[in-house]
């Protein structure tokens, strides 16, 4: 057990060093989400009138936190595919280290990165008018939920990355499922505003909507309904399915 923890920690440190040394990762992980906040708030903010009270930024920021960790989770699969391609996975698998450490190291370091991204996005949000309206404690809960959600999707992404074993394919395979999930959801607009009835049905049952609604409720005090329960069920379900799936793939991988 001690060895497993120390193996995971070694892998987490290795992955976090990348953010210090690869500028493109910093751009992708930190600057892009901030740009999204600014663009959506200022470009679409006027056109997308939000229901009820408050400016669009109150609606947008909690949603875009969820969107950011969702997009960020693709990095897990891309990073793993890169390790497979460059023989690193062979090296790790030939060492007497914990079988889960390479994957756990990736998903945990993505979660740590997500924490900092969320903090920065909230600060930028504050500058342009976002306010926590439901108490700081609930905001912390929102952050924890968002991180858990990102963690769960990192395991989905890990499974894909290990299946395709190629950086570019992992990247495009990620976008194929991430984009529809992100945009046909309540991240940017209320699902009630969607005009097509099948799209509305999809969006209101999309797990991303449950998460976004819950995070929004915790941040600004909109009604939470049963969104919180559905969010937790989805997170638990994704982890229960994809953690063993990814680890099993890792054990058997051939490059």
């Amino acid at each position, binding site marked *: 057990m001690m*060895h497993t923890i*120390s*193996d995971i920690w*070694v892998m987490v440190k*290795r992955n976090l*060093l*990348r953010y210090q*040394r*690869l500028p493109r990762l910093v751009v992708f992980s930190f600057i892009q989400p901030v740009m999204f906040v600014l663009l959506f708030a200022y470009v679409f903010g006027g056109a997308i009138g939000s229901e009820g009270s408050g400016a669009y930024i109150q609606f947008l920021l909690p949603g875009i936190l969820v969107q950011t960790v969702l997009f960020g989770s693709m990095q897990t699969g891309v990073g793993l595919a890169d390790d497979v391609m*460059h*023989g*690193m996975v*062979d*090296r*790790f*698998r*030939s*060492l*007497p*280290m914990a079988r889960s*450490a390479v994957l756990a190291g990736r998903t945990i370091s993505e979660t740590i990165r997500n924490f900092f991204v969320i903090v920065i996005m909230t600060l930028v949000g504050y500058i342009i008018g976002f306010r926590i309206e439901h108490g700081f404690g609930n905001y912390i809960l929102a952050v924890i939920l968002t991180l858990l959600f990102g963690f769960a999707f990192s395991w989905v992404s890990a499974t894909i990355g290990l299946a395709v074993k190629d950086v570019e394919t992992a990247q495009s395979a990620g976008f194929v499922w991430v984009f529809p999930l992100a945009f046909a959801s309540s991240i940017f607009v209320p699902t009630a505003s969607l005009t097509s009835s099948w799209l509305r049905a999809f969006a209101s049952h999309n797990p991303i909507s449950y998460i976004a609604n819950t995070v929004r409720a915790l941040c600004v005090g909109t009604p939470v309904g049963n969104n919180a329960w559905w969010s937790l069920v989805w997170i638990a379900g994704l982890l229960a399915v994809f953690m063993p799936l990814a680890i099993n793939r890792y054990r058997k991988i*051939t490059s």
Partner: protein
Amino acid sequence: MDPQHPVTKYIQDASKQGMSNEEIVRELTAAGWQVEQILDAVLKHAMPVPVPIPGQAAPIAAADNIITVKNITKSYDHKTKAVDNVSLEVRRGSITGLLGPNGAGKTTLVRILTTLLPPTSGQATVAGFDVVHQAQQLRSAIGLAGQYAAVDAILTGRENLEMVGRLYHLTAEQAKARANELLKQFNLEDAADHLSKTYSGGMRRRLDLAASLIMRPRILFLDEPTTGLDPRGRFDMWDVIRDLVEGGTTVLLTTQYLEEADQLADYIFVIDHGHIIAQGTADELKRQVGGDVLELHLVDHHLAPQVAGSLKNLGDEPPQANAGSGIITMPTSKGAQVLVEVVRMLDDQNIKLHDVMLRRPSLDDVFMKLTGHGAEEANK
């Protein structure tokens, strides 16, 4: 210290596997045990193995096999057999070569022996550990340097080595100290704190090899250690490998370069299409060809097959011709006499030669004789 103490148990297990005392002590100290603790375990329990103090010469265990492979087969989709019923043994302290073209099954075999790939059937043990059932213990006894230098490009050389050391569960201090030793040994000290993506191909290979040696493994697997290196890098790597074996490491290396196997390996298994088609020392394999080889380099390359046809009654066996390179090779036991006849004949026919030589057979000739195709040709 009770009989269940890890040191006590380790010594018992290790001595059953025929490890020498020196090796046992080296393994235990590498795993972080103090010499006092080891001696304590021995003295208090009257262990059957007298453990010498490190540094003193210990009798080397009788030459025995450190890798045993019995009827290993690896098939994909129930038909393609990458490795087909291979059995072989590797002697402790030797450099053993697996020689064959790309796709012959060399890498698959190495991946099975290093636990990266489970065999479809058959058994294999490495350092006494079964490749399937004792995979984790086996991993602690071996080092692997794969076909691609598996170093993390955005870590420095030093960080790469320390990371691997930590993953072998050395303490931070031990990992640091070992990294320093290896950087020095592999002449990487100057570049130690540069990102490894700035390294040359040869440096990256050396770093990769250093990483596989962190725990001073008893057995080192080298999968095509010099593929992609320039001649200088290749010679350097050969020296490194020879030094390792002098230090007592057993090396199993795969190569598609006949010269490499000839230069390095004490014993060679020639592998083609998943089968072992020949084995022996380089000299034994060459003797299978017998006699000398007459080699002709034609000025007009395309004439090679036609000329070879006209020479077919002169040698011991029909000559091999390569129209691409214009080279004809012909095994012969009456070297000088045949040489004169051939030159006279070609002169009569007005066929121009760049070069003509009589030489000892190379492993390429062996491969040609065994498989009917050259090692290089099979790569295409």
